[in-house]
């Protein structure tokens, strides 16, 4: 094993003012500018992802694996929060705030959205149970009226 070498810090270097300290008070510091860029970038990531997302919804083409969408929402949220934490003017702050709120909001929605049914759910091979309900005109409907024909039954979440 080679002998350990001790590193001695140059005390003069430690005493040098950092770049940030050398900026005159009240001037725009370089990381303010980049936070603005970050905020706008966060918003652009979110907007791009959302545009594709809602187009897919319109076309009924949401992919089964939504990992890329969720990742882009989380990234937009993180970028937005980073920009806000760094301190940013309103030009970057507004898009950063929107990206943070909506990006994390949609990520949260995804995390709580998985659907599951109970163990008594209908299975392939079962006989269609008889049921009745009101139709769109408020008229009673009974499943017996469609007996003898193939049926596509669709349960969905409604208009809202």
């Amino acid at each position, binding site marked *: 094993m080679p002998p350990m070498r001790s590193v001695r810090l140059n005390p003069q270097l430690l005493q040098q003012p950092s770049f940030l300290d050398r900026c005159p008070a009240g001037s725009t510091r370089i990381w303010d500018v980049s936070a603005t860029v970050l905020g706008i970038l966060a918003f652009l990531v979110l907007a791009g992802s959302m545009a594709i997302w809602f187009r897919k919804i319109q076309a009924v083409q949401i992919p089964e694996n939504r990992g890329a969408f969720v990742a882009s929402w989380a990234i937009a949220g993180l970028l937005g929060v980073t920009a806000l934490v760094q301190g940013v003017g309103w030009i970057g702050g507004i898009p950063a705030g929107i990206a943070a709120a909506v990006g994390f909001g949609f990520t949260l929605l995804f995390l709580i959205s998985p659907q599951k049914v109970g163990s008594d759910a*209908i299975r392939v091979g079962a006989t269609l149970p008889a049921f009745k309900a009101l139709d769109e005109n408020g008229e009673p409907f009974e499943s017996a009226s469609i007996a003898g024909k*193939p049926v596509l039954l669709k349960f969905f979440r409604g208009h809202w």
Partner: protein
Amino acid sequence: MRRWEELRPELDKRGVQIVTLCTDTPEEILAGHPKHRLKGVMLSDRDLAVTDLFGIRNQGVHTGPPGVSGLPVPTTILVDAEGVVRWIDQSKNYQRRSDPDIVLAALREHLG
């Protein structure tokens, strides 16, 4: 669902009826009807009686509209002429619906 009408010739060829169920009231369904443009019966399952009969009430986090005690997990069920369930399409993701191509594949496989 509005894309199912793309399958109209395939549905008619096999004599397949379409029945939809949701928790909307009949009035709400009728109001939304032009949007769906679907030829079929659209039933109101406000109290989730049919949903529970099929055992497909969502047991996950409930994010339903006010005035409704729950929601079905979006489910498509293909039943043959003998009344036997031949195919079930159910998604963990409520945004994902049964695409027409998935339904068509099921029609071809199970009804010929």
